[in-house]
């Protein structure tokens, strides 16, 4: 068992290292291959319209004229030990893990990301709770009442849910629920620690919008999985024991149905934690996704790189959690350890 945990942890770390290398390669090596000169690169990092001297200074500061290997070492060192950036007389400390320095906002990237993390985390976890509970509940009911009116209605709605993009459902919700019927306040994000009620009011619509899309997908998968499990021999055994239908469904059929769903759930939560770009944009939430969009539009490469790395970390971590949870859910995995 310990062996399994260590192996999974090791694999997670390795994956992070690979993701870091690939991200670096995309941002530093690929442009050079495409024929961008060190000064051209520097221009991308500085933003605005710089003087040739400023460009040269940036090239030197970022070591853009150095060999790729040296640059990578420097990048990794920044991640692990921190870096210093000097601007004339001024020196800015970028503590480890240093994800880079944004020249547009004149500040290190990580603190800004961490500032916005609570918004994205609120959105991600809230929506995740709604979609996993809603999706699985609808899926189970649909499977148990297969072919009924409820089943057809639910699966029809799910099809619509999967097909409609968030900027459509989101804007629809904003237009009617907020602006026309004024059921929800027009408000900026309020931290949970400040005013839980206001936080809930602000977050409710984004949660439901984001959850709707995922719940639809989960409902369909739960239904399909449940129908398959209900055909298994051990379900017949359970019925032959004299168990009630409720116990057959909730004890014997639900667990094997949920096992594969947990895997996707982990990945999806990781993905949304890395920034729910569409939802954040539609609802003007100042989260990581919105930050990434601003950076892309403003060509603020260090920020884009930082967001990418952070998103990767979330996915790897969530995946790791699922991997560690799996033997608990399915004892057959345990022997592999």
């Amino acid at each position, binding site marked *: 068992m310990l062996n399994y945990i260590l192996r999974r942890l090791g694999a997670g770390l390795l994956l992070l290292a690979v993701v870091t290398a690939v991200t670096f390669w995309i941002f530093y090596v690929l442009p050079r291959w495409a024929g961008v000169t060190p000064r051209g690169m520097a221009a991308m990092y500085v933003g605005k319209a710089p003087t040739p001297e400023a460009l040269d200074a940036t090239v030197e500061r970022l070591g853009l004229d150095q060999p790729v290997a040296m640059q990578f070492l420097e990048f990794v060192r920044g991640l692990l030990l921190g870096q210093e950036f000097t601007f004339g007389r001024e020196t800015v400390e970028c503590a480890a893990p240093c994800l880079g320095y944004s020249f547009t906002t004149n500040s290190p990237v990580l603190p800004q990301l961490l500032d916005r993390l609570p918004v994205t985390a609120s959105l991600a976890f809230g929506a995740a709770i709604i979609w996993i509970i809603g999706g699985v509940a609808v899926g189970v009911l649909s499977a148990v009442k297969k072919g009924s009116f409820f089943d057809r209605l639910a699966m029809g709605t799910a099809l619509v849910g999967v097909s409609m993009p968030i900027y459509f459902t989101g804007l629809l919700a904003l237009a009617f629920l907020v602006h026309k019927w004024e059921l929800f306040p027009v408000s900026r994000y309020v931290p949970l620690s400040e005013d839980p009620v206001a936080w809930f009011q602000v977050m409710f619509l984004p949660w439901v919008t984001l959850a709707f899309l995922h719940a639809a997908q989960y409902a369909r998968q739960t239904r399909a999985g449940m129908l398959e499990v209900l055909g298994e021999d*051990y379900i017949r055994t359970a019925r032959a*024991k*004299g168990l009630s239908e409720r116990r057959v469904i909730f004890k014997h059929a639900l667990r094997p149905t949920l096992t594969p769903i947990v895997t996707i759930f982990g990945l999806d939560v990781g993905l949304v934690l890395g920034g729910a770009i569409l939802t954040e944009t539609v609802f003007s939430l100042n989260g990581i996704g919105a930050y990434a969009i601003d950076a892309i539009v403003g060509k603020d490469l260090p920020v884009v790189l930082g967001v990418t790395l952070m998103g990767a970390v979330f996915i790897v971590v969530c995946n790791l959690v699922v991997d560690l949870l799996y033997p608990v859910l399915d*004892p057959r995995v345990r022997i*592999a350890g």
Partner: protein
Amino acid sequence: MASTEPVVRVDDLRVTFPTMDGDVHAVNGLSFEVPAGGALGIVGESGSGKSVTSLALMGLHRGSRARITGSIEVAGQDVVSASDRKLRRMRGNDIAMVFQDPMQSLHPQYTIGNQLIEAYRIHNPKATKAEAHKRAVESLDRVGIPHPQKRINSYPHEFSGGMRQRVVIAMGLMCDPKVLLADEPTTALDVTVQAQVLDLLDELRTDLGMGLILVSHDLAVVAGSVDEVVVMRHGVAVERGDVRTVLAEPEHPYTRALLAAVPRVELSRAQRRAQDRAERDKREGRVTEAGEFSAFTPTATPAATGTDSSEETPLLRVEDVAQRFGVRGGVWGRTTDFWAVKGVSFDLFRGETLGIVGESGSGKSTLSRMVMRLLEPTRGRVEFEGRDITHMSERELRPLRRDMQMVFQNPYSSLNPRVTVGDAIGTALRVQGERDGRKVRRQVQELLERVGLEPDHYNRFPHAFSGGQRQRIAIARALILKPKLIICDEPVSALDVSTQDQVLRLLSELQDDFGLTYIFVAHDLAVVRQVSDRVAVMRAGEVVEMGDSDSVYEEPSSDYTRQLLNAAPVLDPDEARSLRAERREKRDKKTAA
């Protein structure tokens, strides 16, 4: 037990499934009774309605489209009209069920203890967890699970197939049911394990005074375990009566046919061949030269067994072959070696049949795959017609593939469902260079007739055929290139007894006509004896005994062979019972020692 009332009474049971093509009568007017503590066997082939009947007894058709009329009484309770709640109270409490496939019938994600305790507490809600736990341990001990106190916390995948079936039986015993309903409880198990499970069921019945309903496709399985037998066909009981009478003097022609089809371990190869040839002559004497088979003129007269073949070079020589597989696991996923076959040697002469018997995991399939060179032996040497093929490349092997063909176990999965029968058989000809499409078609159609199918089956897809017909197609596919050697890997184990018999007969006829050489791999001792000149008994990757089939069967030299022969199901109810008593005595002696 004191009551003389039957525990199960079925009267004029009809189970109908409405389909688009009208109603299907799966069971049509079935009646039987099981007295308290009595045992009833229900025998029939697939589609006879025996499984539908057992599900109906448990009321497990509720919620499906099945329409049930007639009456089923279990422990005085009418199953057909009972409320769901009453039905649930009956299931597991008055009547418990044991299913066919022990690998699938336990929940993989709960410990067996959890599943056993649940079975008890659902019917005894006042029982504490500790009581239920104690009872579960007793029950596991009762069915012969070693160290039940410890094993109760194990998951199903930590048990072998036979042990899992014991666990399912233990689960059935939790509430002291009045009847145990076992639907093909040993079909998925090896011969020796089958004997153990049947012995256990019999022992439980006599010790606990429980009724037993044993459902099987094999008369020999029920012979030694039941008092009364019902033979079913197309949803109707064609014969019902005392097991000794039915087996000794069957009245209905179907029962007689079924009995005749059961492979008998006491029948030798020579006897069976003589029988088959006589029947064939009689049949073909009447039908004047039907199905002339021009492309396949017999290449040899029926092989003279043994005498002159010893001088020539063998068709196949296998010398000390072994196969190693890496098994992942251990610290840091290091692989450990597992030897599936550990050094097997034999010669095989033209026209001869070598039978390889063994239980699952004995290495018999791995051995046949090495002979076919589907696997490269880790060690040793395989010679085909004097040529060393042990390490030949796939390209070098290709011309030789003509000469050796294989027939697989499962006719349902070994034919591609999207390829027509004609293409499936003809492809081999095309692969070997035949370009003339009409010629291919003609040859395939002739061959289809030869294996007992129709020429116009050429364009049909496999799903239109029954299991036996599919196995005939598979045989035709193996035959089309006029091979010298055919390896049959459990060719009849997925088939019903009567279909089994027909396929065996076909194989034997083809051997006569084309001078084929067979390697016949199977776990069924009786089947192997009837088709083999020589027999190799395998266990754990080694040949424990090899020799002339009659001598191996009549004077086995190894303990393991004796054990296998002793475990094989026997048709004679009295002999089966005395063999069982012998086994029990032996076991008691062992535990006493």
